[in-house]
């Protein structure tokens, strides 16, 4: 399924069309102007896709659902201790993109991924790599809060238990407390750890899901519109939390709210119809977008 194109390959394989003339080499690419627009109003990604200390790198990633191509030749670095926000109109492929980063797309039938994705220089689509290990390193928080219908304690303890990180009740207690504290939920639930996780409010449930994700000490946390089902107060609480988590984790977040992207992220990537249109410092994207599509989107002309 996976074409292991080396990062230096000038052709994107499996797509059947000639590769764009740009080089996809990691680390050296700088700004490109967007003079030659194709019919989509897009030729190549504007802005610097690289960072100095990348945690994850994606190069020429294409995703197909059956015959339909969901994202096209996306290359992007995700740096250490930074929050990268993916924005774009619905159906632009931003969720599909982050679901590639921990291979959640594997669970979707007919989904095919080509290109290279690495985590700390290791190809995550390497057939010898165990996807269970990968997902322990790249955690995920979903759009709809989805705690297990178990107790709050068991929700958080689940990951450490299945990965064998804990051997005694005391260690589990400690990890549960630390994770809930980091997720800012400890003070609210410490007296009712045995009650069901599904009995919490929406915002609390989402923080429980974050606590559950960080309980296994992942390197990267992927968040797929984590606040879209929450009210503004709960959203603010999660955003604060994301900012705090940045110290220890790399975070990739998909959001529909441009304000949220502006508030929580350091870098922003704008997706449009499966293309990665523009990448840049969040400040620059929102104050001085270089691509016309980005500008149209953030000024509210569409999307």
């Amino acid at each position, binding site marked *: 399924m996976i074409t292991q194109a080396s990062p230096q390959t000038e052709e994107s394989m499996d797509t059947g069309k000639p590769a764009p003339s740009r080089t996809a080499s990691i680390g050296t690419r700088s700004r490109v102007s967007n003079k030659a627009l194709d019919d989509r109003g897009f030729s190549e990604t504007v802005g610097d896709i690289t960072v100095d200390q990348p945690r994850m790198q994606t190069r020429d990633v294409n995703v197909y659902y059956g015959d339909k191509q969901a994202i096209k030749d996306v290359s992007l670095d995700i740096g250490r201790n930074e929050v990268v926000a993916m924005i774009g109109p619905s159906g632009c492929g931003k969720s599909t993109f982050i679901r590639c980063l921990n291979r*959640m797309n594997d669970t979707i039938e007919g989904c095919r991924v080509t290109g290279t994705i690495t985590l700390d220089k290791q190809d995550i689509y390497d057939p010898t790599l165990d996807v269970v290990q*990968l997902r322990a390193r790249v955690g995920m928080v*979903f759009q709809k809060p989805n705690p297990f219908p178990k107790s709050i304690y068991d929700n958080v303890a689940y990951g450490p238990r*299945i990965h064998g990180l804990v051997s005694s009740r005391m260690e589990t207690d400690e990890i549960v407390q630390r994770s809930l504290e980091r997720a800012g939920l400890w003070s609210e639930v410490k007296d009712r750890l045995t009650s069901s996780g599904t009995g919490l409010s929406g915002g609390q449930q989402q923080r429980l899901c974050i606590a559950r994700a960080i309980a296994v000490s992942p390197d990267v946390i992927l968040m797929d519109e984590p606040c879209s089902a929450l009210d503004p107060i709960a959203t603010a609480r999660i955003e604060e939390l994301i900012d705090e988590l940045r110290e220890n984790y790399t975070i990739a977040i998909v959001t529909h709210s441009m304000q949220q992207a502006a508030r929580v992220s350091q870098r922003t990537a704008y997706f449009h119809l499966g293309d990665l249109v523009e990448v840049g410092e969040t400040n620059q994207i929102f104050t001085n977008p270089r691509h016309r599509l980005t500008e149209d989107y953030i000024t509210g002309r569409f999307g």
Partner: protein
Amino acid sequence: MTDGKLITGAELAASGSWHGSPQTQRRLRKRQAAEKRFRAYGLVAILMGVSFVALLFFDIVAKGWTAFMQTHIQLEVTYDPEVLGIADSGDTQALSRANYTGMVKAAMRKTFPNVSGRRAKRALYGTVSSGAGFVLRERMMANPDLLGSTEKLWLPADDDIDMLLKGHIRRDAPESDRRVSDQQIAWVEQLEQSGQIRKQFNTTFFTAGDSREPELAGIRGATTGSFYTLLVTLILSFPLAVAAAIYLEEFAPKNRWTDIIEVNINNLAAVPSIVFGLLGLAVFINFFGLPRSAPLVGGLVLTLMTLPTIIIASRAALKSVPPSIREAALGMGASKTQMITHHVLPLAMPGMLTGTIIGMAQALGETAPLLMIGMVAFIVDVPGGPLEPATVLPVQIFLWADSPERAFVERTSAAIMVLLGFLILMNALAVVLRRRFERRW
């Protein structure tokens, strides 16, 4: 309108708007009438269904409740060594073969000393159940010291006498039209006057196996047979069906083969059950040489029959587990097996169990396939295991319904009541399970 007064429909009509016109009013009335009619149709359908069910239950209970009482006659019996033909009370073989019927006859002669002539005597002996001797034998075997003593005992009356007392045989009918003679009625009336005949709770019905004599027949053999059959069915069908459902729902690729399998499972659920019986006869009995009439074979056949039901219910239960739970588990780095065993199965289990219980209830009421594998035989002994010949409750009902004796009519109804009781119990259990374990997420 500014002064807060509401206007009437007539005023609206007068204002010239079509909203209040006579045509609109007519349409409105017509629509309202149509809605009332529509609701009435549904109500009528429900009422008809409920009344038919009520009629059925009333009929069964009205016919069957008397079977739970049985007429008994009090006799003064003497354990006379001479009549019994026993010399030594320590000889168990002699005890078991002794002439207890003779003892009953002697007791009857003592109660009615004036009866003479062979025919009259035979009619007299016929008022007591031919199984009364067994009661005496049991007492004697349990306590051999009774030899030589005399005691008053309530012994079961013959089924015709029982029917007479329950009013199913009318005393005022001409003698030639009833199975009880005038003479016998006179004896019964004599016993009634002396308080030596009464109806008491029919324990035999629950403790005995089948019998040709209605007053000695019970459902113990059939319920035990049903129990073993269902046990075999449950042990085989539940794990098989759950495993099949999990594979089809969670692992199987969606291609032509799995489509064919799915269609066939759905079709199997609609195959007439007698076909499964024929299959069981051909495969399990003729080919594998398993014993006939055995609950093991019955269970195997019913497994084939209930498998599709449980598989379909289990798949529906698995499908109803929200994908967000699966994603959460996979996102945490759970393997597919862990996702299924830790999260999906516990959530799907109530639905699977409900399906299983409903399948079991279906199997409990199934008759046709069991006829084919010989579970319709007349079997008196209560089966001691799944390999011994047995029958099951619905087949027992079928057998009794076929019997000519009047007393089997009420026993048929009583057995139906017991069967329905089990079915209601099982369905109630399914409801309770669903309520108890239903989770919200």
